[in-house]
């Protein structure tokens, strides 16, 4: 007997055609899956009622375990038990080296791919494959709970995830055989869970304090479109640090000496319980028993708050910084949303509330709010809502540009453009007879390509040779609803074209996305100056190219020796100074070449007109 769900009016489906969907919060520490049933978004639990699946995968000799079972093997078999894999998504070997030595895994570099693999006794796995294993478990839970195949899922990613990390997440979903409707920014999902997308306008601060990370995002909602104004945080600050603070307090209070790993683990478990208990109680008793050592004590909430105050203050400092980045006054924030289990600690929501001067929204379970928001989106995207339901849009976090001559980045789609979007721009050739063009796709706000992030390179080849500037090459950037892009280049006179789907190169170091935005503001002036210099250098090279080409054809024929030498002298002077002169000098040098060749240009013009007209009757001349 099948079990039916209540549908929206007029949205009942034919039998076996349910549009089942799920929202997935693929977290660093824990993952969740949620779905909308009978109009209500709920977290899907396992048969024991557990909502959270630890994002841990154990690769055993015989089988792969995911979640709690894998977690149990973490201390006994650390090399084959992979956790916090999200930190490695979309990262290259170089990036991982920079993440530090705190990763216990052995990485295997692949000669022909830049994707690092983690060595386990069951084989070498990429972060994408490990994530796919977690996704499979989540999807299976959804299939079992919903009683059918999923039409599609929405997976959440941090707002600061770049294209490479987003692409990696998508790849993982594909490996897990899931159709991804969309990737949704985590803070946006939290705002959706609270129904904030139903408001028209507002500025929302999403304060996300998890087990090991803190993220603060400022979103602007305008006509149903969420725009990420700024993100910030601390990738090594969370509830675990609170546990440590309590743990250290216990050790000093109890006077434990020579704390071994076993005792340390015991203390941490106790510390965690103490923290959780103090959410609802003013005091809590602590009992540590370790062999013949026994210690009993009591911690009050006030003492606890003293212990963790420095940690919470750090988050407030991040909040202040992110507001400054967003160029907002805190009075402009209309809502504050709390996400992450650690926001249950009363001091956290109290201090966040005091800072933003409003009561934070915390009615929903902070561990579940992101998955709930994703489930609501997935339900809409699966088509279970009436047509007038709003479809949530997202915006690009960083501008997408193309490299032009001189190593400059020309932005084709600017930051904060609502996606999906397609934009085209025309470019031309630089040299006479040029038959191919390299297209270099970059991401970032800076003026120089070297300061931006390289996403992809490809060549448009085989268009007919033409004079410099005659070819018309249209480059189209298209970004789909997930923030993933495809690029097409077409030479319009010949129709030659090439395109790629961006397989981003993995080259971004930790936190750089956030840094990139800041750097573009800080360096705006210097960047513009460099841009102007580079543009003059490009112009200078173009002038030299043109003069050289002309002189070979008819220089000696049209010019006196004196004129020829003058032009040559100015041209050589320009060439000599090209790399060293400043913008203004370069401009002057270009001018003097143009000036000394003025008569030459006029004579060339006359000569070519004469050539066209010579020996023809007036009515034979076609006038275009």
């Amino acid at each position, binding site marked *: 007997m*099948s079990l039916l769900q209540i*549908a929206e009016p007029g949205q009942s489906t*034919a*039998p*076996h055609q349910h549009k089942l969907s799920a929202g997935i919060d693929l977290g660093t520490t824990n993952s969740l899956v949620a779905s909308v049933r009978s109009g209500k978004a709920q977290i899907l639990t396992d*048969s024991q009622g557990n909502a959270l699946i630890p994002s841990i995968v154990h690769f055993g000799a015989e089988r792969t375990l995911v979640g709690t079972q894998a977690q149990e093997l973490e201390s006994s078999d650390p090399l084959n038990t992979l956790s916090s894999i999200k930190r490695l998504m979309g990262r290259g070997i170089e990036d991982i080296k920079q993440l530090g030595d705190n990763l216990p895994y052995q990485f295997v570099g692949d000669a022909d791919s830049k994707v690092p693999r983690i060595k386990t006794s069951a084989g070498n796995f990429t972060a994408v494959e490990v994530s796919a294993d977690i996704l499979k478990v989540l999807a299976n839970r959804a299939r079992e709970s919903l009683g059918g195949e999923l039409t599609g899922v929405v997976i959440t990613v941090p707002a600061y995830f770049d294209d490479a990390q987003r692409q990696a997440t998508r790849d993982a979903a594909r490996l897990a055989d899931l159709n991804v409707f969309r990737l949704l920014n985590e803070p946006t999902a939290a705002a959706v869970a609270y129904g904030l997308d139903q408001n028209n306008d507002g500025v929302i601060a999403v304060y996300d304090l998890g087990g090991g990370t803190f993220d603060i995002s400022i979103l602007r909602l305008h006509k149903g479109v969420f725009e990420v104004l700024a993100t910030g945080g601390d990738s090594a600050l969370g509830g675990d640090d609170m546990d440590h603070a309590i743990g250290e307090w216990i050790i000093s209070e109890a006077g434990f000496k020579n704390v071994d790993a076993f005792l340390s683990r015991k203390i941490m478990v106790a510390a965690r319980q103490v923290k959780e208990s103090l959410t609802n109680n003013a005091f809590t008793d602590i009992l540590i028993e370790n062999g013949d050592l026994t210690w009993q004590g009591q911690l009050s909430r006030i003492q606890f708050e003293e212990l963790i105050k420095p940690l919470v203050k750090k988050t407030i400092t991040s909040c202040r910084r992110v507001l400054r980045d967003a160029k907002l006054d805190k009075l402009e924030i209309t809502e504050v949303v709390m996400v992450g289990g650690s926001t249950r600690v009363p001091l956290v929501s109290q201090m966040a509330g005091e800072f933003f001067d409003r009561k934070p929204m915390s009615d929903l379970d902070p561990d579940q709010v992101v998955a709930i928001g994703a489930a609501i989106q997935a339900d809409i995207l699966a088509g279970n809502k009436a047509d007038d339901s709003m479809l949530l849009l997202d915006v690009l976090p960083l501008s997408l540009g193309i490299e032009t001559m001189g190593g400059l980045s020309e932005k084709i789609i600017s930051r904060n453009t609502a996606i999906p979007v397609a934009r085209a721009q025309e470019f031309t050739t630089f040299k006479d007879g040029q038959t191919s063009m390299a297209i270099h796709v970059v991401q970032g706000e800076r003026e120089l390509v070297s300061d931006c992030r390289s996403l992809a390179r490809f060549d448009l080849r085989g268009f007919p040779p033409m004079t410099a500037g005659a070819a018309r090459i249209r480059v189209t950037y298209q970004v789909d609803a997930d923030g993933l892009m495809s690029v097409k280049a077409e030479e319009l006179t010949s129709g030659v074209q090439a395109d790629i789907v961006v397989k981003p190169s993995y080259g971004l170091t930790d936190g750089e996305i956030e840094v990139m935005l800041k750097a573009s503001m800080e360096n705006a002036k210097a960047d513009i100056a460099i841009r102007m210099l580079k543009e003059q250098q490009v112009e200078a090279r173009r002038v030299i190219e043109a003069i050289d080409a002309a002189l070979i054809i008819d220089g000696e024929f049209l010019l006196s020796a004196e004129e020829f030498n003058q032009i040559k002298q100015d041209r050589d002077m320009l060439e000599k100074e090209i790399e060293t002169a400043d913008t203004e000098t370069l401009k002057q040098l270009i001018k003097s070449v143009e000036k000394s060749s003025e008569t030459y240009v006029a004579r060339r013009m006359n000569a070519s007109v004469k050539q066209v007209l010579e020996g023809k009757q007036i009515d034979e001349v076609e006038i275009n």
Partner: protein
Amino acid sequence: MAIQLTDVAANRVQNFLANRGKGIGLRLGVKTTGCSGMAYVLEFVDEIQNDDEVFESKGVKVIIDQKSLLFLDGTEVDFGKDGLNEGFKFTNPNAKDECGCGESFTV
């Protein structure tokens, strides 16, 4: 002519309606589709139509169009679990045969 909801089902429907924030009741119906001829419809109701009959069962308004009522009279709607899956179940005395999954039936 009557339709019954079990206590659990009535409770759930009220819960879902409250969560949805609008809607006056639960629509039951049949459509002629599916592998065995007819399929059940289960929807929220925002507006009552002209040919609708309205029943009340355990405090929940149950709305059925007259045509569907012919095939649903005497049906009991329950809410149950099957493993991790949960949802509404129809026990329909009019149904002679059901498809394997129970989503569609013949009379």
